[in-house]
């Protein structure tokens, strides 16, 4: 690995820039003045390009960046085909949200310096979680991402937002204590914090301790990754927060935590099959319960929150199977869900700016006022429930084909059931949006609103184009996803890259 580092580090950017640059820009925030949103957008676009550039360089093996002292003694960044793919996805998502806020957010709380700092550091925290190769460093980045998320959800500072922020903070702090406890027990028993070194030593520690550490991590990360039964808090947070913040939670933070959870499972456990089965069951239960509950929701944000939980369950179901085709499909679905959920939450933000609340009745007939937004909502929800030719269809098909190939059929039944339930509630909302309303109700349309410029729709259009494009030509992503799935499952390769020996 040294030959990479010995080249001039300024000419060959290293993965550390993905974390250091957002930190630097956030610390210097008083300097930026009015240029904040363009800067946020530009920085993330730059990071996206950097991640893609680095991704091209890790096709043959991971890039290990030493920080101060070589692993396993020190902290290192572990940039491989799957973590960089997710970094690229998440920085792209943040860039789109930044563009949306730049053009559309007129509310004073989004104009503040603090909002800029929070989004920047949320992204730095997520990048760090994806890239770090050290367990305690992971905890630190979880706290960075967590604290920014608590504050983002309380950003509006009214009672509802503060309630959401407080609940998020309490549940997040509980999860952090459990993760810290697991880290401590790991250090006590293995004497190391490096993930690869833990992977080599973990099988030798007593079985009871393995189970205890595993359970603590499962509770801690399960809370953050919104898995059943640790996810009861999610809908309330999403309802209290602004939809723009919820888009970041659902599209960015949860995805980072899902990766962390599965990376730990695949990297540390010598035989992830048993745990994988349990995670599949957990994912299946999450999906079915969430989709069933989503049917009854009468608030747009709560409905989207439950739908998000359902998709997270589906992704968990696919990744837990630990088989290359299905995992590649799961990662594909992860990408699609991020794109579609960003679209849906941003459309929800547009709709809520025109309606008195997110309640069913208040949104009836909204399509007359916001035809484009309603159309994009239809597109996003069709992709979500998996209708051809949209991307969600391809990824669900991919996952089901993988399961069928392996001869396991119960997940297929669950996925189809989930899609049916999704169709039921999404079509209910769509029908509502397009229901003709008597004139007096339209007259209550708030006037004198500072209208967002029409440029606000272009991030949404980008997302829509991507959803259609990936649906028509999944081959665009196929090589990257297959490689990512192989790398994610290749435990001995990852350990060898750091430790120099095969386990």
């Amino acid at each position: 690995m040294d030959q990479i580092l010995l080249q001039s580090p300024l000419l060959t950017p290293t993965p550390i820039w993905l974390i250091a640059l957002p930190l630097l820009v956030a610390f210097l925030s008083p300097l930026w003045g009015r240029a904040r949103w363009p800067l946020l957008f530009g920085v993330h676009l730059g990071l996206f390009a950097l991640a893609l550039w680095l991704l091209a360089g890790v096709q043959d093996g991971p890039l290990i960046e030493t920080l101060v002292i070589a692993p396993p003694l020190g902290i290192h960044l572990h940039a491989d085909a799957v973590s960089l793919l997710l970094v690229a996805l998440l920085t792209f998502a943040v860039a789109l949200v930044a563009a949306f806020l730049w053009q559309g957010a007129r509310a004073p709380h989004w104009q503040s310096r603090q909002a800029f700092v929070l989004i920047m550091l949320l992204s730095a925290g997520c990048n760090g979680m994806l890239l770090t190769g050290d367990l305690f460093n992971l905890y630190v980045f979880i706290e960075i991402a967590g604290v920014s998320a608590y504050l983002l959800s309380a950003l509006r500072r009214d009672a509802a937002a503060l309630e959401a922020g407080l609940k998020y903070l309490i549940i997040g702090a509980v999860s952090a204590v459990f993760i810290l406890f697991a880290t401590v027990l790991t250090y006590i028993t293995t004497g190391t914090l490096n993930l690869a070194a833990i992977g080599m030593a973990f099988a030798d520690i007593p079985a009871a301790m393995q189970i205890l550490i595993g359970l603590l991590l499962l509770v801690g990360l399960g809370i953050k990754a919104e898995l059943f039964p640790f996810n009861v808090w999610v809908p309330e947070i999403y309802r209290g927060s602004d939809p723009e913040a919820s888009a970041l939670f659902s599209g960015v933070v949860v995805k980072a935590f899902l990766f962390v959870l599965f990376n730990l499972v695949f990297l540390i456990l010598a035989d992830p099959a048993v745990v994988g089965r349990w995670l599949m069951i957990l994912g299946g239960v999450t999906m079915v319960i969430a989709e069933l509950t989503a049917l009854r929701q009468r608030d747009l944000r709560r409905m989207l929150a439950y739908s998000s939980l359902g998709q997270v369950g589906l992704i968990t179901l696919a990744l837990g199977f630990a088989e290359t085709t299905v995992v590649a499909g799961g990662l594909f679905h992860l990408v699609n869900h991020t794109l579609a959920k960003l679209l849906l939450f941003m459309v929800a933000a547009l709709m809520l700016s025109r309606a008195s609340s997110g309640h069913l009745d208040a949104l009836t007939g909204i399509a007359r006022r916001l035809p484009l937004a309603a159309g994009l909502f239809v597109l996003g929800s069709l992709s979500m429930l998996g209708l051809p030719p949209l991307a969600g269809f391809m990824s669900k098909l991919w996952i089901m084909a993988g399961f069928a190939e392996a001869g396991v059929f119960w997940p297929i039944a669950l996925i189809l059931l989930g899609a049916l339930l999704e169709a039921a509630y999404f079509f209910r909302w769509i029908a509502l949006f397009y229901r003709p309303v008597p004139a007096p109700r339209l007259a209550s349309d708030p006037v004198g609103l500072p209208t967002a410029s029409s440029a606000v729709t272009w991030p949404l259009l980008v997302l829509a184009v991507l959803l259609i494009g990936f649906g028509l030509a999944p081959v665009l992503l196929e090589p990257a996803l297959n490689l990512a799935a192989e790398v994610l499952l290749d435990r001995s390769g990852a350990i060898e890259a750091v430790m120099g020996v095969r386990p």
Partner: protein
Amino acid sequence: MSRAAPHPVRISARLMLVVCGWLFLLQVAVILLTLGQTATETVGDGLLARTMETGAANAVTAVVVSFRGFDTLGEVTVLFLAATGIGLLFSARPERTGTNTGPGSLDEGLAEGNPPVPTMAAPPPERVLSQPNEILANGIRLIYPVLLLFGVYVVVHGHLSPGGGFQGGVIIATAFMLRMLADPSFVLPPIVIAVLESFSGSGFVLFGLIGLVLAGTFLGNVLPHSAASTGLLVSAGVIPLIYILVGIKVGAEVGAIFQDMLEHHPHQEH
């Protein structure tokens, strides 16, 4: 909104007692069973063996600032976030208070012209810090410079003796806090805090990037740090410099947090 059925506090408290007791026994059993098989060789031993290379006399400081300096960068970031958030929470009155519907995001402009919605909000808190008595005020005035000096000493000697940026920074912030208690007119100007936290935070990252360029790794030690100078005030290369930045940062952030919590009148956002 009607509340759900009355919470059966008593039963649930007993149940939780049983659950916690059971978890306690389980955890203790697992840990005791493992005690014989804890790690004999840890990363710490490897780092101790290499601490001499850094020229720091305090191995904990060498680990915190150099070997695991990346953690410390993350940690001051969390503190920065918390201070930013607390400043935001206390900066100005939110325009509206609790409604069940939870207003949308982009419609905040709507509320501007409306009269304030009456709510069940508590009366504004009395911000009377009762006028401090003379003895307390004079005592604090006496102790204030000593405490500041002690804080600076702890920061600067972080690589030689127990203490360092965090401890010294919190001591300095505590000195400010006592001063604020004794003397209500004493304030840390927000602009100074903003400059200090920006300067120290970006300085930390810049030290990291300089290390990346000159020493090959992020946060690499680019200044001379011979083992022979161990124990001198000027030793250990960038470690004391970074720890001083951490001290400034922690002092500014914790001082700002204290100040925000002490005085609840809104101050200007910038």
